[in-house]
């Protein structure tokens, strides 16, 4: 049991609002963890703190034993953490393939190598057939998959996925779940934010629940959904799993 990522007493506030409050969790290598919680719980903020897009108000993040909070996002990426954005951010004037190539340039300068890695990433998420399309010709679910492909091209050890399956039909989501499982079997560690409980139950071996920025529960999916605190937080937010 080696912890790939360790988050210690992590907090972040925006003015008076505490978006992440004293959160602790660890991610074990090769496993899929889900980060769940109602809207505004602080999930995306957590991602930003781990990925270096935001620095914490207090607390630390350790990756492979090294402290990485206050490291810039490009260096965090080069260390092996790739993330997707909940609000997709395709490079608009570049094709789907070119978008997927960018991440590869974090480890190679060869355009040829980047291209073949990009095809491989697109292949994994089922976008290879649209490699030459423009990004604005993609549907929103496809754009989310492009985000995933872009991140995969960086050859990450840890992948942070922020609601990449939103808007997918159940059969499509099942396909993505299989992809994630294959990736995890290949040694990739995944932390994913996901609202659909059925997917969380199926894919995650560990679940971390946030509510108003604080961790209110953690454990295997079955235990977590049975936890009254978790039910309360969701029902209180008008959410039905």
């Amino acid at each position, binding site marked *: 049991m080696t912890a790939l990522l360790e988050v210690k007493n992590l907090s972040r506030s925006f003015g008076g609002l505490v978006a992440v409050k004293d959160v602790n969790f660890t991610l074990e290598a090769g496993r899929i963890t889900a980060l769940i919680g109602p809207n505004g719980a602080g999930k995306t903020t957590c991602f930003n703190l781990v990925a270096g897009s935001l620095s914490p108000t207090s607390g630390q993040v350790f990756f492979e034993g090294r402290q990485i909070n206050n490291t810039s996002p*490009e260096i965090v990426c080069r260390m092996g953490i790739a*993330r997707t954005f909940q609000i997709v951010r395709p490079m608009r*004037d*570049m094709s789907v393939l070119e978008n997927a190539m960018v991440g590869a*340039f974090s480890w190679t300068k060869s355009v040829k190598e980047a291209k073949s890695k990009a095809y491989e990433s697109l292949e994994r998420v089922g976008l290879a057939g649209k490699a030459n399309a423009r990004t604005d010709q993609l549907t929103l679910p496809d754009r989310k998959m492009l985000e995933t492909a872009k991140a995969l091209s960086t050859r990450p050890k840890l992948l942070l996925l922020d609601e990449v399956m939103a808007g997918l039909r159940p059969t499509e989501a099942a396909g993505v779940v299989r992809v994630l499982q294959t990736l995890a079997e290949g040694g990739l560690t995944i932390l994913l934010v996901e609202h659909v409980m059925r997917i969380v139950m199926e894919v995650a071996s560990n679940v971390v629940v946030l509510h108003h920025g604080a961790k209110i529960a953690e454990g295997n999916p079955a235990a977590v959904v049975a936890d009254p605190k978790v039910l309360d937080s969701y029902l209180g937010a008008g959410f039905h799993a």
Partner: protein
Amino acid sequence: MKRWLAGAMVFVVLTLVGSFADPYLISLMTIVLLFTFLGQSWNLMLGIGGQLSIGHALFVGLGAYSVGVLYVKYGISPWIGLFLGMIIAGSVGAALAWLSFRFEVRGIYFALLTIAAAEFARIMFSGWEFVGAMQGLFFPAPTGEIEFLMLRGGARFYYFVALALAALGIAGTELISRSYLGYVWRAMRDDEPAARALGVRTFRHKILVISVSAAAAAAGGGVLGLVQGSIFPDSIMGMGLSVDVLIGPVVGGLGTTFGPLIGSLTAIPLNHLMSAIGDSLRIPGLNNITYGIVLILVVWFLPVGIWPAIVRLGEAIQAPSKVWLPHLRKAEE
């Protein structure tokens, strides 16, 4: 491959122009080609790197003065002046970028900083006796003899120097844009935070693209000084020149390889024509007014520039069903 072929054909035509055209056309086309190259340097920085400069005259001027001071004062070959100018301008550009981005001055504020720097340099050079201050620097009149090692010769010689420079600029932009730098720079241009999340070290890449652009602008400036035969701070480092540099790519097509050539080929002769008409009709400033109107029309009706519009038209003729798929870079290939 089609693009290289098209480029080669344009090059052949321009070579013929240089061999047979009359002196007026030669001198006009020399300026067009020089501004193609200068526009290309500016285009690399904004169109590919996403960094706006409205003070490119700073780098042009540094190049011109490096050549001018070394040659006029010490008789040192302009080749060395060009080299030195590129190093100076590249370093100044890098320093400016470093300072600016280090303190989170970016986007339009960085652009304002480039004007401020250019104006500062212009005023400094205007009062600096060593570089001729307001009286400027004058190159000795050309003997008409071609001295390649001293980069000296007549109008036709400089036409071919300008042509070589423009061709180098176009080929260089094309090569950079196909290398990993092109991908990384375009990613940074489209979305800097997203590029950083994919491991692009945007801080150093912004400095690099600005430095390369500045060095190229200095090379163009060095030749421009030689062609004009004199260097004055107000013209070579003035705001007017900064604007002249960016008109080619803006009119021709931002971020495209051939845009600056097409744009300069359109805008500069038009400017000359209108200034001639204005002179004969005694309407001073007619050229500036027309220039303004044409710029507005192009930006209004062809916001991406003339060149992409031509490419699209060509595609429409070849494959009518594909017109709705006009992707800028894909279309160019």
